[in-house]
């Protein structure tokens, strides 16, 4: 087991940022914590990376307790905070050399680990870190977190504020790192990134709603789901919510996602109902749920458990 947490909790004043979480992450896994801003992801990461003391429970990373054995642990974990936190006034190369040195190693010694990433920013190695683009900053931060050859890597919202192409590249890099046997724990508010992880934990208001492989989470979505479209979207929402079999209705991009409470519901029944309401142009397709649908469903059920 690479990481285990037992009833891990943290509160700030009256706010419970993390509520008694228990989970475990396997060696070599690419594990994602998926949840909106304020879900408690950063607090959880700060506790797992020995930066913050938990109020309740315990956690161990690589078999080392995060409170008692933090000194040994710090040598073996890599952490990339959500905020870009390298020295903006030092150059790319100076930043990398700095972090290599304080981990008592050299760039040359672990160059093989970062080579694929570093060669992309190497042309700018004399440039100050503060003058890099968002995507390049991200790559540099990843290099700095990797330069001491950590066994486990924590990435707090690494793709927030990064363009779509860089995001895709970034996930490619994570896959390569995983192939080298590094356990990777990543947090993200982007639901579409969940499918790129081996397993994910959906987290909301300090509680884990569900932990599973992305496929299993989607498969657990128990009710028929339809994407419905009409020219008058706002009125469509109201009309669908008025449908007696409606279980949940929420806008999703250019569609409205509609869940029927009957297991055998057909798209024709919905279009027929909508036609009766005056939406003659309405279209409905049966679709497979994605992570976001599952997340919405889990969020609505008060217990944080699967829909009954």
């Amino acid at each position, binding site marked *: 087991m690479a990481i285990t947490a037992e009833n891990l909790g943290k509160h700030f004043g009256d706010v419970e940022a993390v509520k008694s979480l228990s989970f475990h992450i396997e060696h070599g896994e690419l594990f994602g914590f998926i949840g909106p801003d304020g879900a408690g992801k950063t607090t959880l990461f700060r506790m797992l990376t020995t930066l913050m003391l938990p109020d309740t429970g315990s956690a161990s990373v690589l078999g080392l307790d995060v409170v008692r054995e933090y000194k040994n642990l710090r040598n073996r974990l890599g*952490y990339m905070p959500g905020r870009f936190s390298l020295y903006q*006034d030092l150059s790319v190369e100076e930043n990398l050399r700095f972090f290599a040195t304080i981990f008592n190693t050299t760039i040359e010694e672990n160059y093989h680990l970062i080579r694929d990433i570093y060669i992309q920013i190497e042309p700018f190695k004399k440039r100050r870190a503060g003058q890099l683009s968002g995507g390049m900053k991200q790559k540099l931060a990843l290099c700095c977190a990797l330069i001491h050859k950590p066994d486990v890597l924590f990435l707090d919202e690494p793709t927030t504020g990064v363009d779509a192409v860089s995001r895709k590249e970034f996930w490619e890099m994570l896959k390569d790192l995983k192939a080298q046997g590094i356990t990777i724990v990543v947090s993200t508010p982007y639901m579409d990134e969940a499918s790129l992880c081996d397993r994910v934990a959906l987290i909301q208001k300090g509680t884990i709603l569900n932990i599973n492989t992305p496929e299993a989470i989607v498969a657990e979505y128990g009710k028929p789901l339809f994407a419905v479209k009409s020219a008058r979207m706002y009125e469509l929402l109201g009309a669908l919510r008025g449908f007696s079999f409606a279980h949940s209705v929420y806008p999703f991009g250019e569609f409205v996602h509609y869940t029927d409470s009957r297991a055998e519901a057909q798209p024709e029944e919905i279009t027929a109902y909508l036609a009766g309401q005056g939406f003659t142009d309405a279209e409905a397709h049966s679709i497979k749920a994605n992570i976001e649908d599952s997340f919405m469903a889990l969020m609505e059920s008060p217990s944080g458990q699967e829909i009954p």
Partner: protein
Amino acid sequence: MRTIAYLLQKEFVQIFRNKQMLPIIFGLPIVQLLVLIHAATFEVKTVPTHIVDGDKSGASRHLVERFVSTGYFTVVQFSESMKLGEEDIKRRKATMVLVIPPGFEKDLLTRGAAKVNIILNALDGGIAGIAQSYAAMIIAGYSQEIQTEIMSIAPPSAQTQAAASGNTMLAVRNSFWYNPELNYKHFMLPGILVLLVSLVGLFLSSMNIVKEKEVGTIEQLNVTPIKKYQFIIGKLVPFWMIAMFELAFGLTLGKLIFNTPIVGNVGIIFLSATVYMIVVLGLGLFVSTVTETQQQAMFIAWFIMIIFVLMSGLFTPIESMPPWAQVVTLFNPVAYFIEIIRRVLLKGATFGDIERQWWSLVAYAVVIIMIAVRRYRKVSD
């Protein structure tokens, strides 16, 4: 050791890369020494004076001449009317009015005594006090001279009489030790140097550490196996070195420009400065632990600095503070260092002379570093 050396190297690279830093390091001492030393002086150079000479005699002209020849009094107007003099004071054209009444010479010659009247604008008590004492000295000198003249004219019997009645001249000769020319610049320079190294130590160090918090780099540093003492040494030593450089630079400037006496052993000054800087840098570290942004750090550092400087004896002597304030200054490291540096530079004090202040600074350094280091944490609760 390698880690500390690397931290220091990184710190210096960052300091010298900072565009505001070099002007501060080199510009601040020059500006402080050149501007502040001239400005922070209690010497009263010119007292604008209105002279009302109602007598217009040889004696009155003689007295006026004595006033003018000192160089301290500049005559803005001569008149014969008291009213004009008062007007000048009201309009702030004159700070002092010297009134010589009619019959001045006659009284002097016949009665051996005469009155002059001095009116001062005492809005600024300091200037008025100094002008008054200057004027009193001039008049006393004049009356002495006049008396000798009168006596030499008077019959010998009268002379012996005057001597018998205890009217003999008593010559008071002042001698000012350690600063014989009463040069204010020599007195101010050591204090200004202390101000300089304190500013550098407190502001730059606290802001530099808080910057790591503000920018977020502390987060990345804290997950590294870097030790607390390594981090603190790496942060404070550069500013200690800069402050020592500033002190040497300032002393050199002072010697070259103002020819400030360096009577004592410079080694004692640097030894004391070493301990003093530990106190100041410890304070800087402490400030950085209680603040989150550079702005907050600057505000708190400023607040501490102002109190320390105003209560340090730099501008106003500690001896003239109320007793409770004198007790407060016992907790002021700035006061100790100013005393040490003034005594060593101007009086040539030996280590034995400043031992009490030195040990006070050592005690202060130990306490402040302990508190600051305890407060600085790599892990947040």
